């Protein structure tokens, strides 16, 4: 009986091909790097509340003081304005201000969301610093 000669490759493959495994691992790592910021909280940075001081400031700069009232009204530098008017006036005032600081104070029963909306608006219109003011009790 004639023996069939076994075919042999000149270069036998050595070990396993890990390319696909490495590709999957690399894809997972990239996916991880891309998605990790989504798990972190985003936020608006604020200067924590200070107590209102009496007397004028030494530095003369254009002031942007916003006061929110319980009934929904907004005071911009002591004058009542609508939200629409506030969006128009804020960029003008901030453009003339050196510090571009917006100070926000509220009455006792203002919802937190309203304050964040105004903070967000101020930031959008170019505010450099956002400060929350707490009235002295």
């Amino acid at each position, binding site marked *: 009986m004639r023996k069939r000669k076994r075919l042999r490759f000149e270069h036998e493959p*050595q070990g396993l091909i890990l390319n696909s495994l490495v590709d999957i691992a690399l894809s997972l790592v990239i996916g991880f790097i891309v998605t990790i910021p989504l798990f972190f*909280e985003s936020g608006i940075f604020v200067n924590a509340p200070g107590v209102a001081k009496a007397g004028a400031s030494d530095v003369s700069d254009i002031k942007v003081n916003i006061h929110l009232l319980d009934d929904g009204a907004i005071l911009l530098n002591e004058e009542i304005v609508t939200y629409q008017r506030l969006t128009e006036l804020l960029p003008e005032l901030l453009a003339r201000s050196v510090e571009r600081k917006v100070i926000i104070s509220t009455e006792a029963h203002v919802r*937190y969301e309203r304050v964040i909306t105004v903070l967000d608006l101020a930031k959008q219109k170019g505010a450099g610093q956002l400060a929350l003011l707490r009235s002295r009790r």
Partner: protein
Amino acid sequence: MKRMANIDILPMACVGLILVLTMMILAPLVMTHTQTQVDVPKAHTSEIKTEENLTITYTIEGRLLVNDIEILPEELDQVVAEELARDPYQLVIVRADKDVLHNDVLEILASVKKVGAKRIACATKRPKDD
């Protein structure tokens, strides 16, 4: 032809892959403290900081949590001071429900500032249309 001895690296690759997967699952749990569901306000201009932080959560029911551990309001100063003693420049994030009173949040912010926090942020989420 002399055969070369080779090392089977497949088990090592598998272990590496499992470690990557474990890290992917555990990292968000360890590095963030957002297990308590709070409906934070929406903002277009929020910044994301991927760093270890101290998270103070204030729910609509008035519960106060520091890094997802519930505390009494009078304990806030002490707990935050202990955390900040380790790193005074640690970012403090206040996650408050959008429907709570702003004055309550101000009290929290004032306490945090009083014990020496240098960087404070109000947590927000981006609107879906962004």
